[in-house]
């Protein structure tokens, strides 16, 4: 005991505000290896944790508290924190990173004092307990051994009359001469119950009392290792030992409050003084920068791994940065992400993330939302990369780390759905549809067409369908239209063809010329109209229409209205005849023809016979009329009144008979003599043109008349120039 006090005198420290000076060696031993023992002095009715009123719970809490202390002592050897002591060497050698937990015991013997502020335990009480337990357990003496005696919640102790647990310490380590050698030990009151002993807390372990006690235990333990008997390592400016100079400095704590991991167990423990960096440290290395260097792990994931490559496709780039270090946080951590040209950020985390600090065993995850800025080609690989820059807690720049991930554009070609061959007539409307399908629902497919015959246009409906429509104006023939489907993800476009056959247009040819035709004369004008499908004139026009009537024929050319005409002088027989109109077809139009029956007639070789207009009007079709008779006046009724008795039906002079078909004139007067003067022709044509007389009056020896039209009469036999042989016939046509 006397030796111990002298040694302590040499180790007296003053905790001045200036803690920056290094600790120095004072000639004594260190614990080259530490062998620790825990004595839990817990008489019946006492507990380490605040009592719950339930004995079983209290007992369980005490066991947990003890196990936390044991866990520290079992795992501190070899840890980064313990390694801070290995930079110090004593008279007996250099400290090694070895601390062995030798065992623990729970002593339920009663305290010799009440443990109150009025009747506290004394230093000698505690030393005696250490010695007694040591003897009972057979634990050895020697300065390489450390004994930690834990007293119950609220138990006060005093080192001397003025330095007690309620005003001067949370714990202390000390030494004395035991019966078999020097004993290094530590008085470990239940620190949380004392108050003012820090607030270390690791969330999740549900033991705030143990957390604070562990911080104090570590403090005393590592001081004991470096200064087991007061002549080891401490600061000559009296700021204390390695633990004192860093009391309640924890550095950067992680998300659960931990700042050090020992064999994967989380602790919040104060840092220890490190001469190597002239500061508080959680680790030590023998070379600069003399602390462990955190080496972060960065992972990146771009999901999904494949995507169609359309603007709007949602990709998520997830970054996770982890600090696997057990002791050293990273600082000034910045994540800079670079997007490929094809991708743009749409939300989520920034491309430049200032993480700041990343504590031990902590990780941070960020998600950056990206999407293609434009259509991306199938097979293209989009790689997002990130570089992380950071420093250690001393500001030393750590090598950048990088991570990246890629997603590949996988996009199927669309399928083009085309109809079969199309056929339609020239100048007719044609409509058909095409479509495209694509397994990539988000693809925008553009449809185009080329090689369409004139008159057709293609419309992309914007919904993966397209429509060809229009009226064919191309020269009839076979056309090959090519259609393409472009999903914007391929350099080679999907295409297909449709054969479009433009056929010649149907035509109708209708004879529109005269059907009652004057034989001979100065000419017959034949006329017909050529129409497409019976509705509109051909375009282009100019088609040749061939007309025949008997042995006579001519060719006409269609005009813009489809009308064609030409003239012949009909030389065929009288009576029924056929006019044939023929269009032989051309590049654009199919052939067509018309055939019509006409009546060919002629006038008498001079003059003309007449019938009364009213008689004619009252007669039905094909009625028999009398055009020569001595009773002509009674058989024919005229608009201009009763004809004179002397008019027998023959007009010797007619002003003026037509000479063409159709009639170039039709009217208007005639003149003749009374009776059989002049006599009519000996014979008459079998089909004869007869004047339609509207009046006939006698003035002197002249009969004057008017006429307004010409009908064709098939003459009956029996005619004679004598009025007693009347001339009759059947009306078969109207010429004019």
């Amino acid at each position: 005991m006397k030796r111990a006090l002298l040694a302590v005198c040499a180790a007296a420290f003053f905790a001045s505000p200036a803690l920056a000076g290094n600790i120095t060696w004072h000639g004594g031993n260190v614990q080259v290896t530490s062998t620790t023992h825990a004595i839990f002095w817990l008489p019946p009715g006492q507990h380490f944790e605040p009592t719950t009123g339930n004995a079983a719970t209290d007992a369980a809490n005490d066991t947990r508290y003890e196990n936390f202390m044991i866990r520290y002592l079992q795992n501190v050897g070899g840890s980064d924190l313990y390694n801070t002591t290995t930079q110090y060497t004593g008279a007996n050698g250099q400290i090694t990173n070895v601390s062995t937990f030798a065992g623990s015991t729970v002593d339920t013997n009663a305290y010799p004092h009440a443990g109150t502020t009025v009747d506290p335990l004394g230093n000698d009480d505690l030393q005696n307990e250490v010695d007694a337990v040591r003897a009972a357990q057979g634990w050895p003496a020697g300065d390489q051994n450390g004994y930690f005696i834990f007293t119950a919640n609220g138990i006060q102790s005093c080192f001397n009359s003025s330095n007690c647990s309620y005003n001067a310490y949370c714990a202390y380590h000390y030494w004395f001469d035991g019966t078999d050698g020097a004993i290094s030990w530590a008085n470990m009151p239940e620190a949380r119950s004392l108050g003012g002993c820090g607030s270390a807390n690791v969330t999740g372990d549900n033991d705030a009392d143990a957390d604070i006690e562990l911080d104090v235990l570590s403090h005393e333990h590592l001081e004991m290792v470096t200064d087991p008997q007061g002549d080891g390592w401490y600061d000559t400016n009296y700021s204390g030992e390695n633990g004192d100079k860093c009391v309640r400095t924890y550095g950067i704590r992680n998300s659960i409050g931990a700042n050090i991991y020992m064999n994967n167990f989380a602790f919040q423990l104060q840092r220890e003084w490190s001469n190597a960096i002239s500061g508080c440290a959680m680790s030590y290395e023998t070379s600069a920068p003399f602390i462990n260097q955190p080496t972060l792990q960065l992972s990146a994931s771009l999901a999904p791994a494949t995507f169609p490559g359309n603007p709007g496709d949602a990709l998520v780039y997830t970054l996770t940065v982890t600090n696997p270090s057990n002791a050293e946080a990273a600082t000034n951590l910045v994540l800079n992400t670079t997007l490929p040209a094809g991708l743009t950020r749409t939300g989520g985390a920034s491309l430049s993330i200032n993480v700041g600090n990343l504590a031990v065993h902590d990780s941070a995850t960020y998600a950056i939302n990206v999407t293609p800025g434009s259509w991306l080609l199938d097979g293209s690989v989009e790689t997002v990369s990130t570089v992380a820059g950071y420093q250690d807690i001393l500001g030393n720049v750590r090598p950048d780390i990088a991570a990246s991930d890629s997603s590949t554009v996988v996009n199927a070609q669309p399928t083009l759905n085309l109809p079969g061959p199309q056929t339609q007539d020239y100048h007719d409307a044609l409509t058909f549809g095409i479509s495209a399908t694509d397994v990539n629902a988000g693809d925008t497919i553009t449809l185009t067409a080329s090689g369409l015959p004139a008159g057709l246009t293609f419309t992309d409906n914007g919904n993966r369908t397209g429509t060809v429509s229009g009226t064919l104006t191309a020269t009839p023939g076979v056309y090959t239209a090519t259609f393409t489907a472009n999903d914007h993800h391929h350099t080679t476009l999907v295409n297909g063809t449709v054969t479009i056959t433009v056929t010649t247009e149907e035509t109708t040819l209708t004879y529109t010329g005269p059907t009652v035709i004057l034989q001979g004369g100065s000419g017959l004008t034949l006329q017909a109209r050529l129409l497409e499908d019976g509705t509109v004139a051909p375009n282009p026009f100019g088609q040749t229409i061939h007309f025949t009537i008997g042995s006579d024929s001519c060719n006409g050319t269609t005009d813009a209205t489809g009308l064609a005409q030409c003239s012949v002088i009909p030389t065929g027989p009288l009576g029924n005849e056929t006019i044939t109109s023929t269009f032989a077809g051309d590049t654009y139009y199919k052939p067509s023809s018309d055939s019509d029956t006409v009546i060919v007639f002629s006038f008498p070789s001079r003059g003309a016979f007449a019938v009364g207009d009213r008689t004619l009007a009252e007669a039905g079709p094909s009625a028999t009329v009398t055009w020569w008779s001595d009773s002509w006046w009674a058989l024919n009724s005229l608009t201009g009144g009763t004809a004179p008795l002397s008019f027998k039906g023959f007009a010797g002079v007619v002003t003026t008979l037509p000479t063409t078909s159709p009639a170039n004139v039709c009217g208007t007067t005639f003149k003749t003599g009374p009776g059989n003067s002049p006599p009519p022709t000996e014979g008459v044509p079998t089909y004869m043109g007869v004047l339609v007389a509207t009046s006939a009056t006698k003035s002197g020896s002249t009969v004057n008349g008017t006429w307004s039209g010409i009908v064709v009469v098939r003459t009956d036999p029996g005619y004679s120039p004598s009025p007693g042989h009347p001339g009759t016939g059947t009306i078969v046509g109207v010429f004019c």
Partner: protein
Amino acid sequence: MRGLAIGVVVAALALPAAAAPAQSKPLFDFGRTGGTRAPFEATIAADGTVSVTGGVRSLGPVTLTKPALQGLLRLAKTVGFWSLPSKIRCPGPGGLVTEYLRIHTATQDKRVDSFGGCRLGFEQLYAVVKAAAGLQ
């Protein structure tokens, strides 16, 4: 016995204080540093006003009377504060705090740091000043 004497002195000093002229430096400046306990610092101004920062329990706002302040100064003289060494080094284990006390008057200014609690005069004066300031 020592505890009883301290209690009597504290009772005499803890009276409502009259206003006194403030000085630029406090009359008493004391507290604890180092070790494992939370440090604190307290001051008693010349007008008797007590200010406290750090980890110590206070009974509440206290203002010392002028006679009380004069009594503390007399106790300092009685225990030989002005002749104590500035650093008192007593045997003691690692983990103890260092107590300090500084007294600044118009004519004198002295600070004493004490580790280990072996100098009775300082310990008595420190305990009385701390109690007078209402600190536990």
